[in-house]
């Protein structure tokens, strides 16, 4: 419990530091959202008036704490580009990215764990060689190209979905998922391949260790050795890897969202950056930081559960 509280407080501290760093770095960048939203034709006076109205002339500490206070209540300010609260924008965009993430993470885990184990179990066998060939191919293909192929095969040839016709969840949940599964596949394929490769090598490494020989000398069956003795050890490094993959997927994929015309966070971030819509950028950066920090926190907790050596 003490450990839990210690980790939790370091999590909060990290997020606070990220927010300070983020806020300061936006002060350093020339040009603010007042200038950006009024465009190049605006006079000095109108920009100044808007700065006053937006509270940009106040002391930097005052602005930081008022921003932080609002952010904690879920208020990230007004988007200059859309002229609506950032929180509403996020409420609209976040579910798309989250759904995409959940679907692709599910695919990654469901496919990679059994295949990685199978591949390691029969190292050098036919199934291992087939799986290794497929994973190498999948890792070599860039995501955008994979997206194009999926659109071509499933969209244009098999006609399982209409490319570009995104259907929102509120319109029709079934069709929404039917559409989302294809970008999810595009995201999942290369990451599944990496996870398989990682898990395979981890299991193979464990199988060569002395304690496996001890387990064999006791008269254990091979399957028991694999599932009871080896897997728990083999998963220790794989968990860190899967956590990195999950964090990456949750941050949103700019390319895949663009390619499948999904109104997710990735696309919103790109347009916000090019339009200097700083309140949106700040909110998304905080979101990504929070995702990474929370996932690391969870990984630490999981480690503590499965690896007794961490419990000191």
């Amino acid at each position, binding site marked *: 419990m003490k450990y839990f509280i210690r980790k939790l407080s370091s999590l909060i501290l990290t997020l606070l530091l990220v927010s300070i760093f983020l806020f300061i770095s936006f002060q350093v960048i020339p040009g603010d959202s007042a200038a950006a939203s009024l465009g190049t034709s605006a006079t000095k006076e109108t920009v100044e008036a808007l700065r006053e109205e937006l509270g940009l002339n106040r002391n930097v500490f005052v602005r930081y704490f008022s921003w932080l206070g609002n952010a904690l209540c879920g208020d990230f300010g007004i988007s200059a580009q859309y002229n609506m609260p950032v929180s509403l924008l996020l409420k609209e965009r976040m579910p798309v990215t989250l759904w995409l993430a959940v679907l692709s993470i599910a695919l990654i885990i469901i496919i990679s764990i059994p295949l990685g184990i199978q591949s390691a179990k029969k190292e050098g066998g036919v199934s291992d060689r087939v799986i290794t060939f497929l994973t190498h191919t999948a890792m070599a293909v860039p995501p955008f190209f994979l997206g194009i192929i999926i659109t071509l095969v499933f969209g244009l040839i098999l006609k399982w979905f209409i490319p570009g016709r995104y259907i929102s969840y509120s319109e029709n949940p079934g069709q929404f998922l039917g559409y989302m599964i294809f970008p999810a596949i595009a995201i999942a394929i290369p990451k599944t391949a990496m996870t398989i490769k990682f898990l395979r090598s981890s299991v193979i490494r464990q199988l060569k260790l*002395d*304690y496996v*020989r001890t*387990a064999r*000398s*006791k*008269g254990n069956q091979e399957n028991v050795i694999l599932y009871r003795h080896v897997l728990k*050890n083999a998963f220790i490094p794989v968990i860190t890897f899967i956590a990195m993959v999950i964090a990456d997927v949750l941050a949103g994929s700019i390319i895949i969202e663009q390619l499948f015309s999904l109104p997710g966070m990735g696309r919103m971030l790109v347009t916000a950056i090019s339009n200097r819509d700083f309140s949106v950028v700040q909110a998304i950066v905080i979101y990504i930081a929070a995702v990474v920090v929370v996932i690391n926190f969870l990984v630490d907790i999981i480690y503590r559960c*499965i690896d007794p050596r961490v419990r000191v």
Partner: protein
Amino acid sequence: MSKLGNERKNNLGPSQLSDVNQPLLTVNHITVGFQHNGNINKAVNDVSFQIKEGEILGMAGESGSGKTITALTIMGLLSKEASVLGGSILFDGKDLFRLKPEEFRKIKGNQISMIFQEPMTSLNPVMTVGYQTEEMLLLHENQLKQAERKRKTLAALKEAGLKDTETLYYQYPHQLSGGMRQRVMIAMAMICKPKLLIADEPTTALDVTIQAQILGLIQKMNQEYGTSVLFISHDLAVIKNTCTRAFVMQEGEIAEEGTVRDLFNGPKKAYTKKLMAAIPDLSSRKTGFPFSDPDAVQNGQAVLLSGKEKNILEVRNLHVFYEEKAKKLFSKKTRKQVVNNVSLTISQGEILGIVGESGSGKSSLAKAVVGLIDSKTGEVILNEERPQMVFQDPYGSLNPAKKVGWILEEPLKLAGGYSQRERKSKVLKILNEVGLPDEYTERYLSQLSGGQRQRVAIGASLIRNSKFIVLDEPVSALDVTVQARILELLKKLQKEYDLSYLFISHDLKVIYQMCDRVCVMYQGEIVETAFVEELFRKPVHPYSKKLLEAVL
């Protein structure tokens, strides 16, 4: 139980054992090979032997002689790359090679069990000690109820000499010392009361006093339960002390076999003789140190202080600390003392030994002397600007991706002031000096054996004409015959160049052979300093006595 065992031991001497009892295990002409680039390397070639019931049979030999492969063949634990090319193994009337995997599996752990060399890695790190031991019962005595299983597990752990078994049951391997882990392995191997125990170098990785305890435990199990033991060791002294009969393996074949008495008193084969000769011998010692005439010596320290030679090293009241990692972000670092108030001197041309078990602070002392540790207090006065150090592990301490020439040249490059030609000629000279031919400059470290690598390390330490070298367990990782040659080389170089050594070893026999004086270290302190003969004749400190008793 133990009473019965004693009677049994008293009734049957070693020679009677072989007459009365039937063979439990018969190994018939087995040959085991590894596929390598289409060729087959035979690791074990036409090996035959028998183990009688209740007997401890020794298997000796250097690394690579096929000892472990033979043991793994009996256990059916060979890796995929190895294959049995011929022969048969009969265990208790059953042909092990013809058994179905499922039948063989029921014998493993139950009737034949094995303990391994590395107690640190042989246990599963994420499973409790209790579960790992109890797993044997789950596999072979699954009719037992849970409470009964636990009771038997605790009893087995206790019998292996472990204390507080109720706590231990829930502990993980990393919480135990090497000796405790090996006891757990023994408890595990013996819990089903097997007919045959294969012990593959069970004490090699352990400290000498622990080693004696573990050997005693194996002998006790043998006597109490009549379990036959195949005892594998590279250490002939251990074999001599533990077994009645033994055989010596050389390059996959049996070189010689017989009773231990015959093997040690009159080895017949040249190889066995060579092995016996390589054991550091406590009775034959050649020394070049001027003060070692026992009559002239009353007290090691006193004579040295009055000695006419100048001191090359003087250490006064040395304390060495290790900074422990801060546990919390803002908490203070804690310091752990590893060397406590140590004073010593080494005179020009002297070899001073430091002996002690792992964790006694030997290596920290050595590192502090050559300046590899900063966290220390006290005085180190060194009359040598370029102290050198040779480390224990010749595999890990030299860069395997570099050529020998590069390694030897590096200290000269770092020093500067040598032309390329000078450097080359110095490298060749030192290479010959350490007994390697010229063409080795072009060899990669990875192509060299352990002994050759250690020669390179010694060469690199000498190349800048250093007069003082710290040798940290320089032969511990080497086979006994290689060990003897490296010690010879070190002696030769010491005489030739009038070098002084600080020689660290856990092995008293090596210390005896090499050193003039010796310091015994225990828990960071020097508990006794004496001339080597003095220490062996009449050790003063109780810990020195315990160490000497453990030397076999």
